[in-house]
């Protein structure tokens, strides 16, 4: 399954909110077909990293290479067009639009066969098919998360960024959602970068992981190894 070519490579990245440094130095690499988790507490810089990858925030130093392109010089719409999709923190529903319209927005920038991809989404998330004409704002939290994932994969992106996927979901749903991600990777070959506070689940379902602290990459390795690491256990798994 695992291949050797690198899809995303972040080197020496720093990002500032005015004078305040949110990301000091992140180095990270995602290979084709991998599920990579980025762990860290609140304020560690995970969301800032995601927002910088898609160009909503500008990097002060460093580079973000994706599929042969330098993303730090591109606009958000160009970055999305080059094959990156996001599941935003808090799910980012367009709540006044129907489920169907939300899915249609997912292919805004991607030239794909909408109908056949729609069938694929509905086969993974049959609930969305039942509710396709309902407004997204009327869905339950779990259903909204399904919609957010469906909307992000319907355009057939090369890389999926998922910001705090497990936030405000019941533990049962969290397992379901992560299992679906693994299934999507195995069956459709998606490459996924997870920014997660829920370190236990993220390590359980990812291949590799990075640990961020105060805007720096402090550890990285195979998820199974990090799970047994005494520092990670103490700081992030509450063991």
């Amino acid at each position, binding site marked *: 399954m695992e291949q050797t070519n690198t899809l995303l490579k972040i080197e020496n990245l720093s990002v500032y909110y005015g004078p305040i440094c949110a990301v000091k130095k992140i180095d990270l690499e995602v290979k084709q077909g991998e599920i990579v988790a980025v762990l860290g507490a609140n304020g560690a810089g995970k969301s800032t990293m995601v927002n910088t990858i898609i160009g909503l925030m500008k990097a002060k130093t460093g580079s973000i290479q994706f599929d042969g392109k330098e993303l730090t010089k591109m606009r958000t*719409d160009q970055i*999305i067009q080059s094959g990156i999709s*996001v599941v935003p923190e808090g799910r*980012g529903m*367009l*709540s006044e639009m129907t489920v169907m*319209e939300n899915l249609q927005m997912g292919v*805004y920038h991607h030239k794909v066969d909408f109908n056949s991809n729609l069938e694929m989404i509905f086969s993974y998330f049959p609930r969305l098919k039942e509710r396709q004409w309902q407004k997204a704002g009327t869905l339950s939290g779990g259903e909204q998360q399904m919609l957010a994932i469906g909307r992000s994969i319907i355009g057939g992106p090369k890389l999926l960024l998922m910001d705090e996927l497990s936030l405000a979901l019941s533990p049962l749903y969290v397992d379901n959602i992560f299992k679906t991600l693994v299934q999507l990777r195995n069956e459709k070959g998606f490459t996924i970068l997870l920014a997660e506070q829920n370190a236990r689940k993220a390590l359980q379902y990812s291949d590799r992981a990075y640990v961020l602290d105060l805007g720096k990459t402090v550890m990285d390795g195979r998820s199974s190894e990090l799970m047994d690491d005494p520092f990670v256990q103490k700081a992030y798994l509450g063991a």
Partner: protein
Amino acid sequence: MELFLAQLVSGLSTGGIYALLVLGMNLITLVRNVVHHGFSHTCIFTMAVGWLVYNKTGMPWLAFLAMFAAGVLVTVLSEPLFRPLSKRGADLETIVLAMGIGIILSELIVNFFNSGQVLSFNDEMKIFTTKFQVGAITVSVASIVALVACVVIAIIISTYLFKSSEGRAMRAMAQNLRVAKMLGVPFGKTGVLGFLIAGLLAACIGVICIMCLGYCNAEMGDSFATKAVILMLFAGQGDIKGGILSSILMGVVEAMALAYLPGRWAEAIFYGFMMVIIIIKPNGLFARKAKN
């Protein structure tokens, strides 16, 4: 009964014009989250440009073409002014900017067109001048054509907003700009497109007003703008269908009030009704629940 029918036709065509005004302002609201008070002035400005070109050349079609050019130019050129304000989520400043544009356009009309006199249009510009008699009342062909044109234009633009991917992107920007950007909607390009369509619409409104009213002056911008802004807030900012429906309702109620209510009370009663609606339904008459 005949009076009622006559007022209904005239109310519907006035309502149609209001509907297009509100639609244009809603288009701009969708992409830049501003209440463009100066949009009505833009419509009157296109009329003035049409008047000038016709008086200089005598060619009505050239005049109409110039109106469309003026509408698009004024609207699209104002977009870069709104962009930085919209980017930083400004609220009150955008009102100042929009009113400023309206005032500048009005002053331009006063100073450069017919030395501030009323601009009356020639029959060639009005296109439809025939009137016919139904029983005891007179119906002008122009008001019927205007009504049909309003309906057709409103349908085309609503269909565009609800069925096309660009239209959907505009609505997405209005709902959640951050998410729209994350889905790849280009903030600059889609905004300019929204302003461009609004500019074309401004010229359409100008042409319809020439047909129905046959004259214009600088003050019309203000009276149109007041009504359009109130109607827009009354229906809910950015609510496309609500805006159209409440505009038509207002046109008809106004016409009826003029015919059946004594003297100057018509407007006071209507605005009173509006005030109550805005107080008890803060998100607009047609909003079902609070937006999150």
